Structures are given as structure tokens and as C-alpha cells.
């Protein structure tokens, strides 16, 4: 479970609050979309609760541990073993094949051999089992994003965070990505939090949180 308490984020000490005294609880297995207009603070909130941004006022708890007080090695392990990230731009490593990109977190964890079959299964799930040995520049944008999702899921993380995962994709590929998220949430009880500006894709989540000016204005479960 993730608990954010009285979060406030400013990009400069005297600047306006991008996230303004915000509190939210994310339960294990939640499938949440963060929506709002541009500048509403949805991406900022995602990075705060996902530990990537650790400069804030307030507290973010992962179960009982507060992120800013967590030893760095523990934080690196948490990111490696329990979190997966998907960004709007795929951020694949150009020198590595699709399979090697997917296995990168496992390589860091020292579980390369153990995760090889999982990687092949994931490639099959995202429909790219025949393109396992292709480099990113030999894949389409949609295919690259699916590889990035497979990479985020290789360690079977407890939490998956995605910032505009469909933002750079057409409707067909966007749909495919959302289907993958829904499937993992159902099959593996992965907690998924994603940011989207697309109302239709936002509706695919079981819980929809809307932000305006750094505050939650609605938090609805379907």
C-alpha cells in the first residue's frame, strides 16, 4: 500500500505549489488513472508517489517505510524488485535488442537466467516473440512501447507506474497497451497507476483520480 500524506511540491522555494497539501491512499491491486488538464500536477504526483522525485514536503509511505528516510540501497532494491516504470517516450536502450532491454532489470538483480523464460512469455504476451532479437530502431513506435511495458513487468513488480503510456501511440496501439495493463492488474494483482489526458483511456481504470491545480477534485471507483 502507498500512502501519501500532505504532499506539497514546489519547483522553486518561493514558487507556486504544483502539488498542494495532497493526501491519497493507493491500495494493493488498485488500477488507477490520474487525469487532469495540462499543468494540473498529475505527472508530478506520479513521480512523487513512485519515489523518482524525493524532494517534497509531506510523507510518502510504502507500507510502513517513508521514502525520504529509506536507505538508498533499500530504495534501489525497491525500484528494482517492486516497481516498474513506463514513460511516454519508450526510453529503450538503443544498443540492446528487445529481449536484452526486457531483461535489463533482471540483469541488475542478478536473475538473468531465471527471468529468461519470463521475458519470452512477456514478449509473446505483447505480441513480439518473433522480434525478440531486434534493436529498438528496427521496431515501430507501438512495438517499442510494448517492449518498454514488458521490461517494466519482467520482475513481476508490485507497482507499475506509467506516465502517458499511450500519449505517443495511435488508438489501436493505445488500446493494446491498456489491454495489457488491465490483464496484468487482473492476473497478477499488480497495482497500476497511470497518467493520461485521454478520457477514454482513463475510463479503463477501476479508479479515476482527477487533479486540478495540484489538488484532488474527484476520486471515483468504478
Amino acid at each position: 500500500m502507498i500512502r501519501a500524506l500532505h504532499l506539497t511540491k514546489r519547483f522553486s522555494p518561493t514558487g507556486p505549489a504544483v502539488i498542494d497539501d495532497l493526501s491519497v491512499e493507493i491500495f494493493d491491486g488498485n488500477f488507477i488513472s490520474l487525469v487532469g488538464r495540462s499543468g494540473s500536477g498529475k505527472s508530478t504526483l506520479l513521480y512523487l508517489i513512485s519515489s523518482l522525485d524525493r524532494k517534497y514536503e509531506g510523507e510518502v509511505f510504502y507500507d510502513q517505510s517513508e521514502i525520504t528516510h529509506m536507505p538508498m540501497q533499500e530504495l534501489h532494491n525497491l525500484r528494482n524488485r517492486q516497481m516498474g516504470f513506463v514513460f511516454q517516450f519508450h526510453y529503450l536502450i538503443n544498443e540492446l535488442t528487445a529481449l536484452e532491454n526486457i531483461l535489463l532489470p533482471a540483469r541488475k538483480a542478478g536473475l538473468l537466467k531465471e527471468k529468461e523464460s519470463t521475458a519470452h512469455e512477456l514478449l509473446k504476451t505483447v505480441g513480439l516473440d518473433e522480434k525478440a532479437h531486434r534493436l529498438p530502431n528496427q521496431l515501430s513506435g507501438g512495438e517499442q512501447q510494448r517492449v518498454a511495458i514488458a521490461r517494466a513487468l519482467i520482475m513481476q513488480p508490485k507497482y507499475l507506474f506509467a506516465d502517458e503510456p499511450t500519449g505517443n501511440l495511435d488508438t489501436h496501439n493505445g488500446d493494446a497497451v491498456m489491454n495489457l495493463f488491465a490483464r496484468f492488474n487482473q492476473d497478477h494483482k499488480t497495482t497500476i497507476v497511470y497518467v493520461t489526458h485521454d478520457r477514454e483511456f482513463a475510463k479503463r481504470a477501476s479508479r479515476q483520480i482527477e487533479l486540478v491545480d495540484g489538488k484532488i477534485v474527484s476520486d471515483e471507483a468504478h
Partner: protein
Amino acid sequence: MMFLSLRHLSSRKKQSALILLGIVIGTAAYVAISGMMLGFQDKLMDQLVNNDAHIRISAREDILTAEQLDSFENAKHVFWYTPPSGRKDSAKIDYPIGWFNRLNADPEIVAYSPQVNLNVIFNRGKVSLAGRMIGSDPHRQMRVTNIQSYMLSGKFTDVGSSGNRLIIGKALMNKIGASLSETILISSGKNTPTPFKIVGVFETGIKQIDETTVFSALSDAQNLRGAPSEITDIAIKVYHPFEVDQKVQNWRMGARDKIVSWQEASASILSVFKTQDIVRNSMTISIIVVAGFGIYNILSILVTQKRRDIAIMRSMGFTPKDIMLLFFNQGLLLGVLGGFIGLALGYLLCLLIGNIEVEAGRATSSSNRMIVSYDYLIYVKAWFIALFSSVASALWPSRQAAKLEPMDIIREGG
């Protein structure tokens, strides 16, 4: 991180190859230049150390003054018509027995050889040449220098203890047109020329010795000089030729004779060695610094290009140390590999240089080829220079990469 570092290197084949080439050339240049210069220096140093005495005690050449010969100290009306001047005649070591006792008691002395050194004129037919005669006990002389190894014909001991026999430098023999077993006339300038028989020929490779010098028995040289039982020099060999300075300083205290170490006698050559070393090191360091800047530039550009990769890797749990290693390893790999290839290339260059035929002289081997040093320390030093420059140049960009925070990169749009 080595896996990814290798991938980075292999994905930029041209850049990597160019940097590698820089390191290879730098290392090979160091090996080849050092091999050549140190080979030359080693040969010359061997000659400086072993061809002559490590320490030479010789008679001080005093200049006469009127005061020294003034027997009428208080007679103000007595004057010299022509005041005495010039060198005191027959410079000699005044108390050689004192030196012999001292040298016999010194455990650091290998051997010593009393000598008579005198300037002479060689005559054969109509040819007259000025030169130098060194009279010594041949057995003692052989223990002090390695003259026997330069003998082309005859043995050094053939001069015996008397009998007007001599060993002559090959170039000198050619100049006066003599040959082995022939008799030539030698004069010290004071007496009538004395016949000496050539019983051996030597060649040290040092022109100024080979063209001017003959060796004879000590008593023959003393007789020629007209001062039997006097000696002008004592040539001394020590066990540790590179530590003679202190000994020479001690001996000089209270001694009337001139005492010179081999290093002082060869000061100009040794200073040339130092200059050569400075030139050699500067040249190589320049090449290696250029290669190092290559690594620095390319890695700095790479860190900028790979900011997105750094962000995603940090989000996957890779630590700042992992990120540092990702880039640092590339410099390390280039340094290690470039160093090894450079050593191999340098060795090949040394083999080629060692086969170049040159005019006979000090810096050539017995087969008149360039002398090259294959001292393992050259190779160790070259490899470490390559490694150090690569690692040092990779360190800064790697540390910069490690300091990058994923959030800053993402917020800046990668």
C-alpha cells in the same frame, strides 16, 4: 555493467577504433622510442662504467709561480730576470704507497691499477702522430676495465711486465699504417724514440680512444717517461659504481692528488641522457594526453546522449555507482586493450629498429645494428601510462553521469 559498456563501445565502432588507435600509437611510440634511447644509453653507460676506472686518482698538475721558488725571501734587491712559469715538470702521485694501503684495506674496492699516462708521438717511416700511452700491469688493468673484451688480435697480457711491447687501437694502427708484430717508434718528446713492438690490437668503438691510445707495461712507460718507479694515475674499480660520490668526497678531504669519479668524467654524456629522457617522456606524454582527451570528449558527449538511458536505468534500480561504472568501464577497456595492442606493436617496431644497419660506433651492436632495449620495465611503464591516462580521462565524465538524478532528466524531457 561491463556488458552494457561493451555494447556502447561496439555500437560506436568508428569512434572507439579512433580512440583505441590513439592509445595504441601512444603506447607503441613510448615502447619504440624508449627501447631505442635506452638501448643506446645502456650501451653507452656500460662503456662509461666499464671501459675506464670508476674512480681515477691522478697527479695534480701544478703551475709554477715565482713565490714557490723564492729562496731570497728577505732580499728585496734580488729579482727574477725571467720568472718561473708553466706546468711543474713530471706530475706524479707523491705518495702512492699511502693510496695502495688505503685501497687494499677498503672492502668496497674490487681492484686498482697503478698507471703511467703520458703523451707520446708515434713514428713509423715518415708518419708521425700524437697520442697517449697508458702503462700498467696488464693483470691489474684487466681487473679494473674490460679492455680484454675489445681485443681484436692478441691478448692484453701480451704486453708482459717489460720488453717494450704494446697493444694499439685499431684506428691508430691504420692511421700510421702499421700492422701486428711490427715495431714502431715512440717518443715522449724528451728523449730519443724508443722502439715498441705491436703485440695486440683493440677496438672499443670509441673513436677518441681507438685513434690515439696504446697500452704498454708499466715499467716500459715509466722508462719512456724517464721517471722509473713514478706513477701518474691509479685507476680504481669499485663494487657499486653508482655509489662512488660519497667515497670520492671522503678521499678528497686532505688529499693533494686529483680524484675524479667516472660520473664526473662523463658529466656531459650523463646530462645528454637526462635530456633524452625528458624529450622521450614529453613526446610520449603528449601523445597519450591527446588520446586521453579523445576519451574524455567522447565519453562526455556520450553521457549527454545517454541521459534518457541513465534516467530509465536509475528508475530500474541501477545505482549511481552502476552508472559511473557504465562509462568508466569504457575508458578502462580502451586503456587495457589499447595498452596491450600498443605493447605488441611497440615490440614489433623494436624488432624492426633492431635490424636497421648503421655505421659502426658507440650505439651499435657487434653486428653494426641499432641497439634496442627490451627491458620489461619499459613495457610495464608504457602499459600503466596507457591505463592511467584512459582511466583518468574516463573518471570525470563518469562521475558526472553518476550525479545525474533521474527526475531532473525526465523533467528536462531527456
